[in-house]
């Protein structure tokens, strides 16, 4: 049993981290009322920037390379998300359509520039990815230590901590109260002197940063290079986690962990006796089927922010 957990849990954490980051981004955006189907594209941008920066500066930056790559990916994706904010918030574009355009644009630009700079369809493998760490002291705890703290990625723990930070921000601070108010009843927020447009821009930019973080972590722990198929559906899976987690940061983290767990099962199933007989396809589609079931109300009702997807037009009442 311990052996099985020892195989599954680090793998689940490994697959979950990018999903957690990105799903948290989705929570911020959607809580402010902006639908973000573009999470996929934001992850693509993060993966692309992370890999390119890593390849370019690996020599000069040494062991700091992946961390700085992550930071830069975060910033660039945050800036990139402004396009989504302009379209949805200022220009009243349909949020879903704009999100789809973000996905097209990120992938198109990423591959275009890859071909431009590397003269082929994918980049080289990075030489400075994130490595697994064994956390001193904690890993010495019997049983738990080996399962949770040996051979794990620090990024997984950062993701989990960040979920709690996001919860604190959204539910305990004035900023969070305002952000949620804007997503529920923007006009009420406006009459209270809150700048609805500004809040939504900030939320979308945060979602871009977190999406970029997720994409770059995926690229630098799992994929290790960038091509058109590096990010293939992780963004949509993160979106599913947002909804499965009922638009709550901790819920989204839980959902992302669970989806990561399902993914890890489909990877390591051959090594686990009970799972070896389960056809792979069931594990692959599990996250999506579960999300549909959750939406249908079979697993608790998921209630979206009230003004989700509505443009806010000042002065109409």
């Amino acid at each position, binding site marked *: 049993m311990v052996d099985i957990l020892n195989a599954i849990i680090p793998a689940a954490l490994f697959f979950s981290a990018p999903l957690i980051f990105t799903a948290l981004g989705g929570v911020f955006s959607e809580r402010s009322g902006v639908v973000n189907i573009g999470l996929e594209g934001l992850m693509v941008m993060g993966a692309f920037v992370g890999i390119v920066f890593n390849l370019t500066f690996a020599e000069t930056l040494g062991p700091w390379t992946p961390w700085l790559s992550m930071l830069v990916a975060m910033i660039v994706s945050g800036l990139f998300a402004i396009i989504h904010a*302009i379209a949805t918030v200022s220009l009243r574009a349909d949020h879903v359509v704009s999100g789809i355009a973000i996905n097209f644009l990120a992938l198109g630009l990423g591959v275009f520039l890859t071909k431009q700079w590397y003269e082929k369809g994918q980049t080289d493998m990075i030489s400075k990815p994130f490595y697994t760490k064994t956390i001193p002291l904690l890993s010495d705890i019997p049983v738990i230590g080996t399962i949770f703290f040996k051979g794990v990625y620090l990024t997984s723990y950062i993701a989990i901590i960040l979920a709690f930070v996001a919860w604190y921000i959204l539910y305990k601070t004035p900023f969070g109260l305002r952000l949620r108010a804007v997503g529920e009843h923007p006009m009420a927020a406006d009459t209270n002197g809150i700048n609805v447009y500004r809040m939504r821009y900030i939320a979308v930019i945060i979602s871009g940063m977190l999406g970029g973080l997720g994409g770059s972590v995926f690229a630098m722990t799992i994929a290790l290079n960038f091509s058109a198929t590096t990010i293939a559906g992780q963004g949509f899976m993160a979106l599913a986690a947002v909804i499965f987690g009922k638009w709550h940061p901790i819920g989204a983290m839980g959902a992302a962990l669970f989806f990561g767990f399902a993914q890890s099962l489909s990877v390591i199933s051959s090594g686990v006796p009970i799972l070896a007989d389960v056809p792979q396809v069931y594990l692959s589609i599990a996250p999506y089927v579960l999300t549909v079931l959750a939406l249908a109300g079979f697993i608790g009702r998921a209630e979206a922010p009230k003004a989700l997807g509505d443009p806010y037009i000042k002065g109409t009442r």
Partner: protein
Amino acid sequence: MISNRLFNIIVPFASVFIGLIAGAIIMLIYGYSPIEGYKALWNGAFGDAYFLGETIRQVTPYIFTGLAVAFAFRAGLFNIGAEGQVFAGWLAAVWIGTSFDLPIFIHLPLAIIVAALAGAAIAFIPGLLKARLGVHEVIVTIMFNYIVLFSVNSIIRNVLTDSADKTEKIAPTASLQSEWLQGLTDYSRMHFGIVLALLAVFVMWFIMEKTTIGYEIRSVGYNRHASEYAGMKVSKNIILAMVISGAFAGLAGSMEGLGTFGNMSIQSGFTNLGFDGIAVALLGANRAIGVVFAAILFGALKVGALNMPTDAGVPSELVDVIIAFIIFFVASSYLIRLIILRFQKGEK
């Protein structure tokens, strides 16, 4: 004041124009000549019989997915699931095409109809969830895209073949391919599907504008409460619209299975036919005839793009960037409205 109808025509043209300008700017930044680039694009789409044939081949499924998205849109539904419905139709068509031995006048229609049914079946579930439980169709259809993707791959590997990456070729009796059309277009992969696509355009226009079915669907799309008040069965109409939409997408899949490829391979990701269909529908203002023009544009861009690396050295992905910009600007039509208003004020 500018009339609404005129505005609806200006928006797509302006969006395409701005999209192409954006593409030109990117080419300039990376040291390409936009004129050379677009010339390569044009030649790659229409330059000779072969390219023309390939463009028409690409336009065919675009018309179908464009109709699929547009039809659902008119009922107030956003079918992002065309992607998965395409795969379902593709698989179904190939399945029928490979596993029966029938005369052509039964085999081909059967394969096409089953493809439509497969797409419809996939779209039925989100339609049902929307109609009965009010679950938002956008998320459900996205989830179904992945469910279908993995399931289709599993079926190809485990049911249709013995762990192979692709199915056998379909029987000639189920094929839309035509040596005559291929000969005419210098051996492009053009097939008879385009005829079906144009027929489908007429069908959508006729249902929407001329029948009480279309009247109900439009009514439900605009105002569910008023439709219910007027005695229409809202749930039935939502499900019907999704099913018809899914059938169009399934037909797009059959174009790939019976026309372009003649088989189906394991798919690592999506073909984007469904997502591009959203752009086609949007640019075509969700009207049947608009979809035709938009499909021609996107088909030409996609096929023409393949000629850009050889003729002008420009990576073909530039076209994806251009398409993304076009979608942004169509969706942000408010911007174009503002510009027109500013322009008119200036005139005064």
